[in-house]
């Protein structure tokens, strides 16, 4: 895995997107909120984007804070591939 690998995390609703933003900030995990790419979801308008090297601490945070996540996608160029959380 290279540092350039990007992931997109889909959450059930905007409440949880902002919960992730708040908790990630508290742990100094850099993430970005993006409009959800149409290819991967037609639903919650926003998603969380992160770099590959921040995947592990972010997933750990989701577990510790009991934040329900819907799906995780790996992005390469313009392709999205759903990947397991572990």
């Amino acid at each position, binding site marked *: 895995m290279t540092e350039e690998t990007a992931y997109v995390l889909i959450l*059930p*609703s*905007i*409440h*949880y*997107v*902002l*919960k992730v933003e*708040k908790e990630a900030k508290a742990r100094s995990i850099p993430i970005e*909120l*993006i*409009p*959800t790419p149409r290819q991967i979801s*037609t*639903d*919650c*308008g*926003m998603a969380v984007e992160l770099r590959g090297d921040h995947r592990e601490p972010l997933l750990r945070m989701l577990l510790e804070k*009991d934040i*329900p996540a819907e799906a995780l996608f790996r992005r390469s160029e313009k392709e999205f591939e759903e990947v397991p959380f572990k």
Partner: protein
Amino acid sequence: MIYLDNAATTFPKPDAVWEAVISCGREKCGNPGRSGHRLAAAAARELFAAREAVAGFFHIADSSRLIFTANATSALNTALYGLLKEGDHVVTSSLEHNSVMRPLHALRQRLGIEFTAVSCSPRGELDPADVQKALRPETRLVVLTHASNVCGAILPVREAKALLPEIPLLVDAAQTAGVLPIDVQELGIDLLAFSGHKGLFGPMGTGGLYTAPGLQLAPLLQGGTGSRSERLEQPAFLPDLLEAGTPNLPGLSGLRAGVEFLAQQGIATIRDHEMRLTRLLLDGLAGHDRIRIHGPADPERQTAVISVTLDGRDPGEIARTLDREFSIACRASLHCAPLAHQTLGTYPQGTVRLSMSVFNTEEEIQEAVRALRAIAEGNL
């Protein structure tokens, strides 16, 4: 004007509340959670910040378990209709507001639920042991007002819960949110319904409901949430499960400013001030042979809400004289709580209710005492 109708809605509000409403309306009022553009994101952040602030105020660990409603009535209906099923039994008190009694009555007619309204004393005291005695095997819920909207009496919700740890407790905090400290964990509250526009100093059209982990309510309303849009079923997760439709975002921005004002002032400081005003009013009216005070008549055991009657005078007429002759705003009659008046012995004529907030001054209370004594003397 001397405003002593704060139990109906607080007035004035802190300036910061109205500034927050305007700033939200001018700069952040997209539809939260419905779109990905920057204005929608700003709106979603505003809603999230309000939810976190209010949840923190009540010591709610997971803010997703706090849903916003239009008022305390809507929160109470959401809890009662969402939880109760045919054959369930509910224990409540004889001091409840119609926002509890009317849904319970309707549910009795529609679903065949049953309820027991435990009698409080004529001074508004509830013995928690009487709540325990009213339990049945099919009791699903205990509903208690945290304080009477008629006489201010504070009910022993913590003590009642301690006797009945296994039965969910719904607390109607319309009169106490922002007035008494409320920690849902410490008081053992499973469901907390509150109004935004009273002690929390938010605008009208705001309120909320907390549900403890492990309690799942059926939604009263179904509709758009911005989530799981492809499905016909309402999403099963909170807050979306119980928050269909676009929320009152400017109002909730104001509510957050109200809660921030309370945190800044400190609930203990506010309570001290209101207790001092309550003592002043009680002492000023005591000892007059035609003035009767209903309820605890003890600042320690009540909120800053006092019900009085004057022998031989109609409460509506007294309130009108206070308004016209003294510019004192208060409320007369039954205060949407007929059962409470039966308990206090003031049914059907009702009482004159004087209710204070942190913005009232000792001079205003002294003026109210002078006015009521003058009316009692028959000088007006």
